[in-house]
Every structure is written in structure tokens, then in C-alpha cells.
């Protein structure tokens, strides 16, 4: 009796499976854009708005324009949970579907897949995160990290601090505290910070936050209170950010002397501390708010139609718009690739060329329906995969982020030699590292 059911069940099951496989086998002209995102785990607070922004902009292009250049985008999310092993698994899973670009959205995952990219011929976009040295296009032809590296970010902070102090030489004898995520991401700026300390004569106090202790920083902030740094700089992510802002407010640290990197500037990072966080500064390279035609298009064509997971009141928040910015880079690179090659359905190899000659002028930003949304992208080239573009300082006013500075340009002359040295170091440590064989396009 039992056996009969079993056989019957197996037969039905295989029928269903076969029909499913058959229906999926239909070929279709499309461009596959996987999004490695994390909506679960301790970093979900930062990951969800970014995932939403990335997804919604691409979905809007599908709805409004029918994709890019008339080719639909196939958007697929893969959940990484900000975990390296799962991220690599996602990469392996999407690899076979011929992605035109992969965004790991985690420094750890980026590091793990950097060596694979050149072998698999898949461009990696690690937007202002990942390995700073990968800005050196001659050594890392497949990795792109516009618009700015962490070292650019740090130099921009120092330009801002210098402006407030009345010159960087005024920093002599002062103390600057550096609170950071104790992992690859937070460790990266340290060499430049120490060089600045030597150049300008201030002392650095370091406050590492171990990943397991992100939400438990009170002891660390007691040390901050004892050391009384004149400025605090933060490299935080996920649950670490709101905790740090709250603790800083608790010890009455002057919030307008507390600067976060662009990944510490989510609305949910400052909001829990509410009015106490007033004055908290972070760098940013994308516009905030919904006052852009393209964001209105997202609301109209995607969110209002129920094709998104975004709650309507979260649209226009900083990290949501960061996700949109990320997708603009993807979309423009694909468009550029179509222009260069004349093909409609582009491959990863084409999009790599698209990234290398990526230009988004102020006029182009306006054309995209995002006027003044970001600094013009004009310096990405064959040798420079980052461009070292400008960012601005924003301040929390108790309820929302307000732009408080003009575009600040990074100290490229300080950063670039460090990058070159870091790239060389990476390459010597990872011998044999493949020589670049991809030719540079004329247009760059």
C-alpha cells in the first residue's frame, strides 16, 4: 500500500519538476544583474535600505523604459547575511547565469572574490568599499570601486576638520579618536591616519569595536571620556553605528566633532539617539530625500504598484538613495557598454569596458532625473578604477540629514601613492598574479 503511494508521489513529483524545467528553458533576451544583499543578520539594519534602493532603481528602469537600451534587466537578489561563506556561495550560484556585474556589498566578500573575477571574467563593483588598492586598474582590471576610496574619505574628513580648526597645522598637539569596526573594513584607513598624525603632529587614539561587541560599547566610551579626543572619527557599519551615536550622546561628547564615514550615515544610525544626536556629522556622496524626478518615478512605477518591499516613508533616506546611486553606476556602465560595443545584450566583458570609460557629467545626472544627486563621475579611467571623486559633509538635525558643506575633494596626491604601494604589495603577496591583458579603450 505504502509503496504504491510512494511510486505515485514520485511520478507526480517528477512530472511537476519536468514541466517546471521545460518552462524555464525558454530563452529570452535579457541582461542578468544579480544583487548580493543582506536583509537578515546583525547588519540588516544597514543592508535593507540599500537592498531596496538598488532593487527599486533597476526595477524602475524595467517598468519605465523597458530595461536599458530596450533589453530587460533580470534582477535577482541573493541573501548573504554579510557572511563571507554565504557571499561566496552566492557568487558561485550567480556565476553560471552570466552576470554582467556583481556587487558583493561587503568588504569581506569582495576580498574573497577579487582573485576570482579575472578568471571568471565578471566585473566587480564595490562602490566605495572593498579593497582600496583595487582602484589601480593596471593590477585589478576587473574590480571597480568608484566614487571614492576609504583613504579619500579620511582625507576629506581632514579637509573638513582643517577648515573648522583654521588650518591643518592647528592640529598639532591635539588628539583624534578613531573608533572602528575591528575587521578589514575598519583597519584599512589606519595607515593613512597614522601618516596624517605624523604630518600634522596630532596623536591618534584607537578604539576598536570587535564584531561580537557591536552593541556593547559603553566601556569603550568611558575610555573616550577619559581621553577627551578633540575629534572623533568613526568607521562603523550595521548595529555598531546607532550604538556608537547613542553612547557618544550619553557621555556628552560634542556631536559636531564626531564624524562618520559614509557607511555610518544611515537615517537609522542617528535616529535612535534622536535629538541627542543633533550635530553628528558624516560624509556622503549621494543626495538624500525624494525630491528627484527619478525617485518620483520609482514611487510611481514600482512602489505604488506593489513591486517593491520598500515602506513608502523610507524612500529617500540616505542608505536607500545610496542603493539607488549604486544602481545608477550599474545602469550607466551597461548603457556605456552598449554604446561602445553596439551590442544590445552585453556580457560581463563588455560591461567591464563600460565601467572603464564611465562618465556621468552634471548634465547627465540631470538627464537621469537626479540633478545634483552625486558629484560628476569623470575621472574613472583605464588606470584609475576609482576616480577619487568628491563627497560632502552632512549633519543630523535631530530628524533628518542636512548638507552642511560643499563638495570636498580628496587629497589625491596623498592617497594615490599609498594606493599604488598597496596594490603593489597585494600583487607581490599574491604571486603569481595575472598581468593585465585587457586592452584599454581609446575613449578613455
Amino acid at each position, binding site marked *: 500500500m505504502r509503496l504504491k503511494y510512494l511510486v505515485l508521489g514520485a511520478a507526480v513529483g517528477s512530472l*511537476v*519538476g519536468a514541466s*517546471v524545467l521545460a*518552462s*524555464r528553458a525558454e530563452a529570452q533576451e535579457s541582461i542578468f544583474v544579480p544583487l548580493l*544583499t543582506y*536583509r*537578515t543578520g546583525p547588519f540588516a539594519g544597514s543592508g535593507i535600505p540599500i537592498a531596496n534602493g538598488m532593487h527599486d532603481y533597476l526595477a524602475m528602469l524595467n517598468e519605465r523604459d523597458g530595461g536599458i537600451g530596450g533589453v530587460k534587466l533580470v534582477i*535577482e*537578489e*541573493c*541573501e548573504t*547575511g554579510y557572511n*563571507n*561563506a554565504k557571499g*561566496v*556561495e552566492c557568487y*558561485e*550560484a550567480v*556565476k*553560471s547565469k552570466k552576470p554582467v556585474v556583481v556587487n558583493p556589498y561587503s*568588504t*569581506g566578500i569582495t*576580498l*574573497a572574490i*577579487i*582573485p*576570482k573575477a*579575472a*578568471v571568471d571574467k565578471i566585473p566587480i563593483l564595490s562602490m566605495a568599499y572593498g*579593497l*582600496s*588598492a583595487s582602484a589601480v586598474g593596471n593590477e585589478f582590471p576587473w574590480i571597480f570601486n568608484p566614487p571614492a576610496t576609504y583613504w579619500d574619505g579620511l582625507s576629506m574628513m581632514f579637509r573638513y576638520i582643517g577648515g573648522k580648526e583654521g588650518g591643518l597645522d592647528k592640529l598639532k598637539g591635539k588628539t583624534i579618536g578613531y573608533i572602528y569596526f*575591528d*575587521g*578589514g*573594513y575598519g*583597519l*584599512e584607513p*589606519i*595607515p593613512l591616519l597614522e601618516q596624517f598624525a605624523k604630518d600634522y603632529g596630532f596623536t591618534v587614539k584607537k578604539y*576598536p569595536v*570587535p*564584531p*561580537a561587541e557591536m552593541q556593547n560599547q559603553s566601556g569603550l566610551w568611558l575610555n573616550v571620556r577619559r581621553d577627551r579626543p578633540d575629534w572623533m572619527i568613526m568607521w562603523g557599519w550595521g548595529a555598531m553605528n546607532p550604538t556608537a551615536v547613542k553612547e557618544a550622546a550619553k557621555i556628552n561628547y560634542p556631536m559636531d566633532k564626531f564624524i562618520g564615514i559614509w557607511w555610518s550615515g544611515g537615517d537609522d544610525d542617528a535616529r535612535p539617539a534622536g535629538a541627542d544626536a543633533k550635530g553628528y556629522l558624516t560624509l556622503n556622496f549621494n543626495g538624500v530625500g525624494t525630491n528627484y524626478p527619478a525617485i518620483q518615478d520609482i514611487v510611481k512605477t514600482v512602489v505604488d504598484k506593489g513591486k517593491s*518591499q520598500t515602506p513608502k516613508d523610507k524612500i529617500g533616506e540616505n542608505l536607500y538613495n545610496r542603493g539607488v546611486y549604486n544602481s545608477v553606476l550599474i545602469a550607466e556602465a551597461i548603457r556605456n557598454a552598449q554604446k561602445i560595443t553596439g551590442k544590445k545584450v552585453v556580457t560581463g566583458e563588455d560591461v567591464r569596458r563600460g565601467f572603464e570609460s564611465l562618465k556621468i557629467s552634471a548634465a547627465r545626472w540631470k538627464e537621469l532625473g537626479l540633478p545634483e544627486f552625486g558629484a560628476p563621475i569623470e575621472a574613472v579611467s583605464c588606470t584609475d578604477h576609482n576616480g577619487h571623486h568628491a563627497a560632502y559633509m552632512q549633519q543630523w538635525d535631530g530628524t533628518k540629514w542636512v548638507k552642511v558643506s560643499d563638495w570636498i575633494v580628496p587629497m589625491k596626491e596623498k592617497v594615490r601613492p599609498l594606493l599604488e604601494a*598597496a596594490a603593489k604589495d*597585494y600583487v607581490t*603577496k*599574491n*604571486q*603569481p*598574479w595575472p598581468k593585465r591583458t585587457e586592452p584599454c579603450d581609446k575613449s578613455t
Partner: protein
Amino acid sequence: MFYREAGQYKTSYAADQALFPILQDRIGIAAILLIAFVVVPLFASDFLLNSFLIPILVLSLAAIGLNLLTGYTGLLSLGTGGFMGVGAFACYKLTSIFPDANIVLLIVVSGVASAAVGSVFGLPSLRIKGFYLAVATLAAQFFLSWCFIRIPWLYNYNVSAAIEVPTRTAFGIPVTGPNATSVTRYLVALSIVVAMTWVASNIVRGRIGRTWMAVRDMDIAAELIGIRLYRTKLLAFAISSFYCGVAGAMLAFLWLGAAESESFNINQSFLILFMVIIGGLGSIMGSFFGAMLIWGLPIVLRAAPEFFGVTVRAATVEHLQFMVVGALIIFFLIVEPHGLARLWQIAKQKLRVWPFPY
């Protein structure tokens, strides 16, 4: 009917003490090895190899390591992740110092570093037992994680505090790094795991394993019959850490291709411990079952909706997978508290009398 040992006479001690005394078992294991070594490399996709089979092999080896300590010797350890990390970082240092050495050899040798560290942290086991020992090994875990960030020499002063695996060869074939094909990495991992499993199953059947089990069952009685406790326990720590260290080196070099302190955190220790508990304490076979269930099942569950053409959001799948796996773990532990290995034994027993059960 088919699975019976009737009529198979053992005429020598060697035959009696063979690892697989029953003919059917020998056929079974030969078939499994044939599939693993020949059929899988021929037909498996990159995804199946990289994200399913290699991880299962690596985690199985780590689970065997912990099983030797916790399952066979009865010493509860929460430091597995740390010991795996020692193996990975040791292998990285070794290959930076000897870039031309055979990487397979280095992976195995890096277990020695882990064994040394493991024995140091095993010293308290002479004094403390049970939960107290678990806390001591927890300290090892935290201390080692701290070292992996705070001692930059370990990761060659890399700015990201990560180890990035370079291309290394064995017999002229790239085995690690981006240029190594997944088939090569799989075959290397498989060979190491098979060899070390064979060694482990012989250790536990022999004198050493018996002293371990005697200590586990009642250490005072063991001492009374002449087993030296501190040697036995330290040996268990050393061998267990050796296995974990090799597994850690494989994790970094053959599976992920990069690793940082976070890859060897307390969650990793718990993951391996769960594999051992669910697979079956004191069973080599169980270690494989546990790794398959805890690592493999989520991947199958994640792929399932897409296979059936249902679109479910990535995050929803993740949440569902957490719930299903959690429920299954509870289910298995209720049905069979001794783990999957015990279920397997029961199945074999049933198979012997099939189709005429009594």
C-alpha cells in the same frame, strides 16, 4: 535479504579486525568512493563543487576533529573555530615562507601548529571537567580570535587583516587560488578527508581510542586500570586540534580562497558542535551526517523554491530556511537523541532482517 553477513567466514585475525568486515559494506564504500572520485568530478557543476561538496568535506573533517575530543574522550570544547583558524593562519604563513613547497603537504603540516596550540589549551582539562572545561576552551576561542586581528605578522601586515590565498601548486598543478579549478580543489579536499578519516577510524578502534573511551565513561576507573589521564587527555586535544587545523587550512585554501578572523569566530565553533551533536557523538560516520544536514540542507532549501518555479524573495527564503532547519534539528533530536549515526545503525539493523522482520 541482501544485507546479511551469513556465510561470510573470517578465517584470520586480520579479516576479523578489518575496518569493513562485511562484504556488502566493502561494496558500499567502494561504490561511494567511486562516485566521489570519478563520477562527481566528471559531472558536477562548479556550484555543486564549490558551495556544496567542498564545504561539506571541510566541515566533516572539522566535525571528526571535534568528535574525537567531545564524542570519544568526553571533553566538551568550544574552541573549534579558533583551532581551525590556527591551521589556516599557519598554512598561510608556511606558504609565504616556502612559496614553492607542495601546498597539499603544507595544508596537512599546518595541522601540527594547531595541535601544539590545542595541547596548550588542553592543559586545564587535567583539572577541570564538563561545563568548566567548556568555559576554558571558550577562552581559547576568544583569545585566538583576538590574536588573528591583533598580531599583524599572522596575516603579513595586510591592511584588511585578511589572508588572501595566492596561487599555489602541487606537482605543477595549481591547487589553490583563483586559477585552481574546482575539480582539482575538490579532489585534493576529498583525498585529504578520506585519508584522515581512515586514520581516525583506526585510531578510535585501537588502543588510543579505547583509552579515550575509558576516560570518557569514567575517568577514575580508567585511572585505576592504569591509564595515564593527562597523557590521554592531552593526546585527545592534540589529535583533535590537528584535525580541526587541517580543516581550517582547507577552509581558507580550498574553499573560500580568503579568510579573516571572523571566519573562525564562536559561531563557527557552535556550528561544528551542532554537527557533532546532531550527527552523533562518538561516531565518525555521524560527523559526515551532521555536516551534510547542517550545511547541505539550507542550500537545498534555498534552491528548492526556484527549482519548482516559485518566486520567493531571497530574505524570505533565508528566514524560512532558519525555521525549517531549526525545526528539523529539534525533530531529529526528539526522534533519535543519539544523532543521525544511531538512525543509520537502526536502518542497517532493519535492513538485515528485511523483508521478514520479526
